[in-house]
């Protein structure tokens, strides 16, 4: 698959302070490649640099160093922006416009004809499940979830080849989240590439083909979801009662983490082979085995470690 987004050592520093200027690095030499037709998950905690990256790609802010190319063109190339769509984080739109007027205005900015704008506006408002009675209401009367839907619709007004979504599920109720998830999946089915920022792992795990994890402005992990999962270590958790933790630790002949819980002890070993040794130690201290279960390290732990 051809590469459609290429980020090369992109760095953004901000100056803070008035007299004594200090430099804060919001993004540190980020390099990434995204292939066509993928849903790419860009993960990171709040303040990790996800929104900064998107704002750099949308040329809302300028990089301190590094370059980025989208669809083979430099991000400073205005005509390239006709082929992409962008949903900002917590979208704010003109509150004096109605949803229909706002989408029509966005269509005008892409040079669409009046008839095209009208039909496309209606189709998109339907597609993002905005109730028809809200179409002609001013956006100042919209809830956060409704604004998010309008935001998604405006990001698709030009039938973009790549859609950049900054926290697309934010402000939505569970039904809305599922609907937006379906919408994003349908974009992939249409052959579009989706670059999606999120700090909600379940959405990324369900939707994305590839993932990059950003920590404090630096790329911590990148790869396909399967590759990242293959790095997962497999822990085994053993729960027992009537086994004093200190006595058990003395009897254990393998490396294990023993934690006292309200109902007994929790023993964690990193290899299935070591389970037998733990059971033998439990027998020696007359402990009672309650359960043995593998614990898969999730994307969440990769995200947090």
């Amino acid at each position, binding site marked *: 698959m051809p590469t459609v987004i290429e980020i090369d050592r992109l760095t953004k520093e901000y100056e803070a302070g008035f007299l004594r200027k200090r430099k804060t690095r919001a993004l540190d030499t980020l390099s990434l490649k995204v292939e066509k037709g993928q849903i790419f998950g860009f993960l990171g905690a709040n303040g990790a640099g996800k929104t900064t990256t998107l704002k750099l790609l949308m040329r809302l802010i300028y990089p301190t160093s590094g370059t980025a190319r989208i669809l083979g063109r430099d991000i400073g190339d205005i005509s390239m922006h006709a082929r992409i769509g*962008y949903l900002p984080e917590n979208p704010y739109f003109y509150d*004096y416009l109605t949803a229909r007027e706002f989408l029509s205005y966005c269509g005008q900015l892409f040079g669409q004809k009046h008839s095209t704008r009208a039909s496309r506006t209606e189709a998109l408002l339907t597609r993002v499940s905005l109730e028809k009675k809200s179409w002609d209401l001013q956006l100042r009367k919209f809830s956060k979830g409704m604004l998010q839907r309008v935001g998604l619709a405006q990001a698709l007004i030009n039938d973009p080849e790549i859609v950049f979504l900054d926290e697309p599920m934010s402000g939505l109720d569970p039904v809305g989240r599922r609907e*937006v998830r*379906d919408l994003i999946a349908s974009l992939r089915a249409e052959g579009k590439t989706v670059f999606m920022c999120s700090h909600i792992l379940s959405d990324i795990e369900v939707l994305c083909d590839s993932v990059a994890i950003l920590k404090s402005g630096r790329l911590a992990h990148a790869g396909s979801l399967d590759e990242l999962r293959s790095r997962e270590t497999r822990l085994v958790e053993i729960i027992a009662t009537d086994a004093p933790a200190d006595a058990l630790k003395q009897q254990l002949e393998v490396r294990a983490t023993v934690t006292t819980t309200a109902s007994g002890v929790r023993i964690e070993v990193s290899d299935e082979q070591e389970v037998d040794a733990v059971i033998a130690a439990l027998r020696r201290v007359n402990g009672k085995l309650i359960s043995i279960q593998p614990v898969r390290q999730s994307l969440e732990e990769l995200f947090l470690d």
Partner: protein
Amino acid sequence: MSRPLADSVATPQLDKAKLPIGGFARQRVAAIARNAFREAVRDRVLYNLVVFALLLIAGAIFLGELSGGQEAKILVDLGLSAILLFGVLIAIFVGVGLVYKELERRTLYAILSKPIGRGEFLLGKYLGLSLTLLVNVVVMGLGLSAAVVYVKRGWDPLVIHIWPAILLIYVELTILTAVAMLFSSFSSPALSALLSFFVFVIGHFNSDLKMLSQTSARTATSWIFAGLYYVLPNLMNYNAISGAAHGISPTPISLFTAVAYGAIYVSVLLAGATLIFRRKNLK
């Protein structure tokens, strides 16, 4: 809400090859201008027309009794001054917020991510406010003309002399809007409004600056006054209010010169504002 989201939507008729050039750029600027005009209307900026109408009605009723036959002259003087005052307030206070409000409310993010140059955006916003001001002065001018006809109990040549003065007021307002926009591209709205107001006031005393630069004993002071004289707009060129009240219109050549000077001055200011805005990192 139960409608499936995955319905496909027809591809818009978009000629991607033609996107960034010529007519399309004009179309984008026009779209931004129309939206800026719509914003002003919906933010009730044109409500000042109601205040102006009340002022005219009060003037027309009371002046006849107080001014001993000079009521039409005083009405024109008062009316044109009010058009200028209302226009200046709109040009400065709406002008400094044109871009700042969009930055503050982050409405700019979704717009500037689209294929729009920052210069196109500024020009569109500027033209939108200029259109608002045009509607404002034309409606006020019509109201003033009607008030003159009313107090004179019929047609009066003063009605003709009002309009060149209104044209000059309008050009002055477009210069002030560009001044406000330039200041707001690098400073806060409050400071921009203050600076724009200074430019308005000093611009009306521009010839005094020249005189001060010639009579000043110290070279440095002389240079400062001369610098201000050349940099600040000469707004005295646009003051035809008392002439209009006395039935005197500016010559076509002075009208043309004033309009051309305004157009050049506005172009330079907008180019400066664009240069600054292009380099700006949005928050």
